Structure formats: structure tokens, C-alpha cells
């Protein structure tokens, strides 16, 4: 058996007296697209941030390709070279053009020379359909375009795993589609993705696994058809029902 790309084992995290993650176990193989769903405050984003150590864990382990990345002597920047992240609020570098955003990491972190970084950066912008906006600054782009630049920026580091933290939550409804299309394209190309999102269209069509998280615990974990059509736990059913009502409620 091949070892999993990501192996989270018995992960605990609390903020003060508030327990956010209470013993989470999760494995992902290369090429998996895992979508994390759950009510707000259930710990989805925290779990994601524990993977690339933007948040410290309290106990348990996170292993990437067999290497425990949470042990004290582990080099967090070596880990982050292999794990890209896309943020809810895009967090683009405001003083750099789209191309500048995409090339900064490769140049400063991977030591790529400027010409090569630009050439590859253009390829990544093309992948997200934004080559024509290479010289635009973030403030000149729509939210959907900014998020696609955010995805290209993460891709430019050539990561093993891409994390998406509610990538469409800050977008106007009419801009969600262009970002979801890019994500679906990445999934089709076999990129390993761990996604926090309630975009059910994406979850149904692109995910290999759905994980339902509630109160810091994984309540249910399975392929989309199973989890959405025949959920086992009451909590899952209740949550999915609420989600559906909300979606039907909005025109």
C-alpha cells in the first residue's frame, strides 16, 4: 500500500478554553479532492490552517508524504513550499501586479531567476484564464479575478497539495462560477486539493471525498454520492437539510 500524501492523526487544537478540534483523523492520497463541510465554528478553517502550520496544533500529528511536519525541529518553510493556500479574502499583495503576485514566491523563495519566473508565471495566469490581466494590480481586478490570481500564485510554487479556505465565500454570486470552473479544472488535472467550501456543485462534481465536521470532530466521511444521498448520522442529515433550505431560499 502506498502511503498517504497527507496523514492527520488525532489532532487537537483549542483557543483558550474553547476546543476547536477534538481528535481529528484524516488521510488524503495523491490526486484526492477532499471537501470539508460543516457549520460555521465547526473547525474547518482551523483544520486547514493546521495543515500548513499557519495555526499551531496542541497535540497529534500532521504528516506530509510520511514526514511529520509538526515536530518542533521541522522546517515550516519546507512544508509550505509543498502546500499552497488560497484564502477567502484573496490576500493578494496589493503593491504588485497579477504577474508580480505570481512570481514573488518562486523568485524569493525558490530562487528562480526573474525571466524564468515571469515565463512560468504567465503560464500559471493562462491556466486561470488571466494572461490578459498580467499587468493589472489587485485593486483593478474583480473579486473573481483576484481569487484566480490567488490560485495562480499558489500553483506557481508547484505544490504537492493545495488548500482552499472558503475560496468563493467573499465573492458576489455571479463571480463564483469562474472560480469554481478553475478549481474543477485543477481537480481534473489530478491536483490534490483540500477544500473548505459549501459550493455543492463543486463538491458533487469534483470531490472524491466529503468530510463533515461538527464541533471539532469528523462526524462522517465518504464519497459525495454516499454522504449527500444516504448520510448516516443525524447531524449530517440535519446540516445538509439546512444547507439545502438556505440555497433554495436565495434566488
Amino acid at each position, binding site marked *: 500500500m502506498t502511503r498517504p500524501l497527507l496523514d492527520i492523526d488525532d489532532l487537537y487544537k483549542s483557543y483558550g478554553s474553547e476546543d476547536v478540534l477534538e481528535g481529528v483523523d484524516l488521510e488524503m492520497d495523491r490526486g484526492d479532492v477532499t471537501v470539508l463541510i460543516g457549520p460555521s465554528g465547526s473547525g474547518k478553517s482551523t483544520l486547514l490552517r493546521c495543515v500548513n502550520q499557519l495555526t499551531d496544533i496542541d497535540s497529534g500529528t500532521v504528516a506530509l508524504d510520511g514526514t511529520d511536519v509538526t515536530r518542533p525541529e521541522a522546517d515550516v*518553510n519546507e512544508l509550505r513550499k509543498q502546500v499552497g493556500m488560497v484564502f477567502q479574502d484573496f490576500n493578494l499583495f496589493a503593491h504588485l501586479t497579477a504577474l508580480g503576485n505570481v512570481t*514573488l*514566491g518562486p523568485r*524569493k523563495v525558490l530562487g528562480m531567476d526573474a525571466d524564468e519566473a515571469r515565463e512560468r508565471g504567465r503560464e500559471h495566469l493562462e491556466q486561470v484564464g488571466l494572461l490578459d490581466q498580467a499587468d493589472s494590480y489587485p*485593486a483593478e481586478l474583480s473579486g473573481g479575478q483576484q481569487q484566480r490570481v490567488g490560485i495562480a500564485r499558489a500553483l506557481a510554487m508547484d505544490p504537492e497539495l493545495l488548500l482552499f479556505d472558503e475560496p468563493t465565500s467573499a465573492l458576489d454570486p455571479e463571480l463564483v462560477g469562474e472560480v469554481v470552473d478553475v478549481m474543477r479544472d485543477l481537480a481534473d488535472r489530478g491536483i490534490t486539493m483540500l477544500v473548505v467550501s459549501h459550493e455543492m456543485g463543486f463538491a458533487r462534481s469534483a470531490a472524491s471525498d466529503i468530510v463533515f465536521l461538527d464541533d471539532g470532530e469528523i462526524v462522517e466521511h465518504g464519497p459525495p454520492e454516499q454522504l449527500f444521498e444516504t448520510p448516516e448520522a443525524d447531524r449530517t442529515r440535519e446540516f445538509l437539510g439546512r444547507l439545502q433550505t438556505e440555497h433554495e431560499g436565495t434566488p
Partner: protein
Amino acid sequence: MTPTLLQAADWLFVADNLGLLLRGTAVTVALTAASILLGFVVGFPAGALEVYGSGLPKRAVERAGVVLRGTPLLVIIMMLYFVVSVSDSAFATATAALGLRSAAYQTQIFRGALQSVDEGQLEAARAVAMSRFEAIRHVVVPQALRRSVPGFQNEFTIVLKDTSIAIVIGIGELLTTGQNLYEGGRSTAALEIFLAVSLIYFVLTFATNRSLDRLSDRYAVPEGTA
């Protein structure tokens, strides 16, 4: 005799001594440049320390700033010259006094500018595997420097005009030169001399502020919803 009236002869006296006034102006410019530079070299890292530092260094910088900002410049300059005697050179002493005082204010300018850059960008830089230092240097500092220009323009104007306080330790800067002219030369020309001196200060501050505006426009980046 009404010595305060503007007189053609007094203006001629000013014109005849324009060379002296310009020499004083050169000292003023040099004193300003040296003080602003010292203020920047000390103030920028101190601002960064106030934002990103911790423990003793941060507290030391904060307290030094409180003391310097709470002491009149005239007191600082006289202390350094007559009490502490940091240097035999009046110019070096004035530079130290103006520079340290400016450092305390520039610290606040840069602290505010650094804090104004959204935390999420720092996090995004960390997520592409930059160290904290690299992230601050490549992402936060370039934006903070742009945002510090208006505050820096104020500070520059204040330091330029406050160089006149160096008159108390006898530096031949612009105001001292003007004073020497009417005390040692022509007492009726005081008004004309002060007007000329004021005009020179104004031209210097105006020209520099305009240049900084240009610099700021040139490196401006579209800002907005991001």
C-alpha cells in the same frame, strides 16, 4: 524713525548680503538632511520593532520615544551641547538632537504605516514559504513606505524649520545668519531680513514637498477594494 517700515535701502542691504544668507541656507539644508537621515536610520527599524518586536527591545524603544517626544527640542539640544557634551562640534550636536527627536516621530509614522498593511497579506506571504522577515521585507515594507509619505512630508517640514533652534548653540544656519546681519550690520533691516529668511524656508519646504509628491505619484499603486 520708524524702523519697521519696509525701506528700499534695507532691501538693497538684503540683496547685497544674499550670498551670506545662501551660505546659511546651505548649512540649514545640510543640517536638515543629516537630521532626517539619522531620524530615518533610527526611526524605521524602531517603528518595525514597535510593530513586530517583543520584550525588552520593544519596551526600550517605546519608552525612549515617549521621553524624546515629551521633551522640548530646545531642551534636548541644550542638554546635549552644554550638559552631556556629546561632541565639540555644534553641527554634530544639533544633528544628534534634531535626528533623535525626528527618529522618535518617524518611528510613529512607520509604525502606523506598517500596521496599516492588512495582516492577511503577511499570512499569504508566509503561505508561499517566506520567512517572517522576508514577508515583512518584500510584502509589508514596500507598501508601508508608500503610505508613510504624507506623514514623512510633515516630519520633513517640521525638521527643516526646527533647524532654526540651532541658533542657541551658535551654528551659522539660515536664521543665525539673518540675526547676525541685522545685529552686526543694519538694524533697520530686521523686517526685510526676516521676510527674506521666511521666504527661503518657504521655498525649501514647498519644493521638497512637491518633489516628494512626485516621488509618491511615480511609485503609486492603484488602491481600492483589495
